[in-house]
């Protein structure tokens, strides 16, 4: 029975993909992730099934890590399926979407129960290629470009991993079972291949170029699983292929630490400069994957602590998967339904969770991760605090952008989609209380508070010193970091001039002048609807004041 259930994790989504074109097919995607959830709940840890005749000899099984991954991935796929079930129509486009959705699901859930390198690679490839169909789904030039870019990166990753897996197999005389692979550290070229191959999926800085645009175009239900569940497959790849606690990999651990910390900072800075909520969430993912990478690096760099750190990293991954998925689904609700008060409340809660404010899953994940770090890793605490602080800023900006973008009601979503989202919200709200011990929910008080404070300050300041935007200098909504930085510096200059002028005029302490300038400002306020002046929170101001407060933060720890 157990082995049958493990097989069904693969087979049911694949079998249902054959039925995706049927008339009442809109609900079949909802059934597909059920075996995974059932397996996570009912199959005892340590169960395994061996199918020597399948492919090159397939081994499936469930361990502790696999169970957590199966639980949050299955849950996210279920919620996304429910969300999609209501929102998809029944044309050929929907059929195509459903097929790719189910294939990606089979790959993602399947690779979690895979216990040998080849079936893991099979699931990883199936998921990676099927996700292309989800990204390319909208018939727009923009989606086509984003999908092509995604595909190029994905194939590059597959190729590196193929070489890595073959080399590992050669190193262990053709055996590819994870239990054998983990018995000795990967030799020679294999480590960089594995780190980069899975690093592409995890969007390490420099390997992230596919991610923001893909998140910007992918349909909501798909981007929820893409950002929540599928991206974590890269982490699972590391956990599966790298032997934990092997002293030979300490240097690679240090390299991962550097990559992770770079990711945290890069994602945060680039995210603050974005002007659409989806892009911002994309860079936020890059930042959060930086946290996971840092955790993985710590596990390799302090081999004796690896088991504890890995547990913490897995919990953090689960937290991020659920919250990020929910954020995208909520954003989808706003995009289709308009900004209703209860959706707004839900988004605020999710934003706080992702930032890791006390009493949320974020605080729980953060405190577990903090507690797992060994002696000598104290400097990582600073970066974790920075991450919490930066995420708070990111989330404030996200909420602001959502509020600014709130559309007219275009095509209301059916009740299923909303119920699915609320379900996920309830789970995110409740699960930390169910498993956390006392005290674990009170992390991050200072960074989140500082973040909120700074956000409020910036909001006020941006209202005080608006940027005059002419049609020539209007910024593109998307663009890489360099472009956004350049534009932000120009903004900063623009606002800086404004600040200096205001200060100068105040210093003259001439009542009349102050009054005139206030009048002028009021005048500008009134003209804001002319679209001549934009009231916006530009990235430059964020960075400027953010840097100041960050200095304060360093002393606060």
């Amino acid at each position, binding site marked *: 029975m157990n082995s049958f259930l493990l097989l069904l994790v693969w087979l049911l989504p694949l079998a249902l993909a054959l039925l995706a074109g049927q008339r009442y097919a809109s609900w079949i995607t909802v059934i597909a992730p059920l075996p995974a959830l059932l397996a996570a709940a009912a199959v005892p840890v340590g169960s395994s099934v061996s199918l020597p005749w*399948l*492919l*090159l000899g397939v081994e499936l099984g469930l361990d502790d890590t696999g169970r957590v991954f199966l639980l949050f991935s299955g849950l996210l796929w279920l919620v996304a399926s429910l969300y999609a079930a209501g929102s998809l129509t029944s044309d050929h486009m929907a059929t195509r979407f459903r097929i790719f959705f189910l294939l990606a699901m089979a790959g993602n859930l399947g690779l979690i129960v895979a216990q040998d390198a080849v079936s893991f690679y099979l699931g990883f490839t199936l998921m990676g290629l099927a996700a292309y169909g989800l990204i390319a789904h909208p018939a727009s030039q923009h989606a086509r470009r984003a999908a092509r870019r995604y595909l190029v990166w994905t194939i590059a990753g597959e190729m590196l991993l*193929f070489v890595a897996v*073959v080399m590992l197999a050669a190193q262990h005389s053709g055996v590819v079972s994870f239990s054998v692979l983990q018995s000795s550290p990967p030799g020679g070229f294999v480590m960089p291949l594995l780190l980069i191959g899975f690093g592409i999926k995890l969007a390490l800085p420099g390997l992230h170029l596919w991610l923001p645009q893909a998140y910007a175009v992918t349909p909501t239900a798909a981007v929820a699983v893409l950002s929540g569940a599928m991206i974590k497959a890269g982490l699972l790849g590391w956990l599966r292929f790298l032997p934990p606690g092997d002293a030979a990999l300490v240097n690679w651990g240090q390299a991962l630490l550097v990559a992770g910390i770079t990711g945290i900072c890069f994602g945060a800075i680039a995210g603050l400069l974005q002007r659409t909520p989806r892009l911002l969430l994309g860079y936020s993912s890059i930042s959060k994957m930086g946290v996971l990478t840092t955790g993985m690096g710590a596990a390799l760099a302090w081999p004796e602590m690896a088991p504890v750190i890995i547990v913490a990293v897995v919990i953090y991954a689960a937290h991020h998967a659920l919250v990020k998925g929910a954020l995208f689904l909520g954003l989808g609700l706003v995009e289709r339904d308009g900004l209703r008060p209860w959706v707004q409340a839900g988004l605020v809660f999710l934003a706080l969770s992702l930032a890791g404010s006390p009493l949320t899953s974020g605080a729980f994940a953060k405190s577990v991760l903090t507690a797992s770090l060994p002696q000598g890793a104290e400097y990582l605490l600073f970066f974790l605090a920075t991450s919490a602080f930066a995420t708070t800023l990111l989330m404030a900006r996200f909420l602001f952008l959502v509020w600014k973008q709130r559309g007219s009601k275009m095509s209301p979503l059916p009740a299923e989609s909303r119920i699915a989202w609320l379900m996920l919200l309830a789970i995110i709200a409740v699960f930390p209380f169910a498993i956390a011990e006392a005290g674990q929910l009170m992390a991050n008080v200072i960074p989140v508070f500082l973040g909120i404070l700074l956000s409020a300050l910036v909001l006020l300041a941006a209202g005080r010193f608006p940027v005059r935007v002419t049609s020539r200098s209007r910024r593109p909504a998307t663009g890489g970091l360099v472009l956004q930085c350049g534009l932000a510096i120009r903004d900063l200059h623009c606002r800086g001039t404004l600040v200096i002028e205001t200060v100068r005029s105040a210093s003259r302490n001439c009542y009349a002048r102050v009054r005139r300038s206030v009048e002028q400002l009021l005048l500008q306020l009134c003209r804001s609807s002319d679209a001549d002046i934009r009231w916006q929170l530009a990235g430059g101001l964020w960075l400027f004041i953010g840097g100041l407060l960050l200095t304060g933060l360093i002393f606060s720890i």
Partner: protein
Amino acid sequence: MNWDAWLPVLVVASSLLPGLVIFFLREGSHRLRTALNLAGAILKLLLVGILIWGVFHEHVYESRWTLAPGLDLVLHADTLSVLFVTLSTVLWLVTTIYAIGYLENAPHRSRFFGFFSLCVSATVGLALAGNLFTFVIFFELLTLVTYPLVAHRGTPEAVRGARIYLTYTLGGGMLLLIGTVWLHVLAGPTAFVEGGTLGSLPAEYHPQLKMIFLLLIMGLGVKAALVPLHGWLPHAMVAPAPVSALLHAVAVVKAGAFGIVRVVYDVYGVNFADQLGLLTGLGIAAAVTIVYGSVMALLQDNLKKRLAYSTVSQVSYIALGTAILGPIGTIGGIVHLVHQGIMKITLFFAAGNYAETLGIHKVSEMNGVGRRMPATTLAFSVAALGMIGVPPVAGFVSKWYLGLGALEAGMAAWVMPVLIASSVLNAAYFLPVLYRAWFREPGPAWPAEHIPAARFETSATLLWPPVVTAMLALAAGLFAAAPYSPLEWATLIAHREYGL
């Protein structure tokens, strides 16, 4: 002669005799011709089934006629020949069904099916050949009986393509013949023996043996389309789709690759060939061909031409596997003999379906074709992904064993980059096709819609062959480790070759 001696002859005759009869049938006797074709194909399949069972249990099937002292015509079934015979027989059956649908109401069907049967007979004959002399005879026969098939349409382009084909292959055949005669003079009759027989020759013959190897490989390389001897292949794609399918998957190109495998393993012996330093040269030729073919495929807009250059590239995987010393590389090369066959025949069937149903000949005309012909396009997609080496399609297994074999042989430094480059290039020329077919909006009308969509997207005899072969390609990869899979059989061959 007893049953064991007759079986190889019967396997060849089961397509030869129907073929000869078909020549004399009237054009209109459609039913009799179909019955003869299918009866021959099914009978051959049954006989091959017995052959597989027997060879697996080390039963000896051999027929031998002495033409002159020291010159025997030998049909002998060993593991390698059974692999190739099985491939030819199964794909012949499928292709016959496809050809019946494809050529419905076309002129000269008796001529076509006659030569078609002869072509398969020659292929099976060279697969079962027990020595180099027999092999060469069937090899030349194959050239002659395929010529009318390539020229079948009779258009100036077809005649020109066929003439180029004949020039190349007769030239190649000449080189092969010279090599064979030279070898015969040097070493006497050369039977195909696992592990080779030439290793025992004295060392002063070695320079001559190297020259002979070069001649043989060049002769075989023309059919196997090794660069720069591949020039005929893109021209030969003017042939009707079933001919192209059989030509690329089983008969001609594969016969060349099969010959290379035979010469290296069963004439020279792989260890002896390595001693002579011949494998490196072969490997380099294969690597160059793999990359060159893929780059050329990238540049083609004509779908069949793109597939033709893809064949140039993919068939050299077999030669590459042969050049990798060690059982695992051998498995990779030999199993690709089968895997490339079933994947490529699927691609050509699908291309034929697009042309016959909608008049689509170019990649740029394929926008949205997945919506109009989902089953054909699905089959095409499976085979294309397999060519890239995406698991679980058959091509992945080949790539896996080639990579693993190269690592074990210490040749990974250049084999691995070639494999990866080839995969990337394959992705670059197949994935845009899939993108067009599945994601682009179809144009206002198809170039020339011959067969309207009814119950199926096209006529049933055209639809099922690619679907079946695509399923075979999927099954060959998915059940690679199961008993009687191509991989298991290739492993058996490699083990007997290396005496494991």
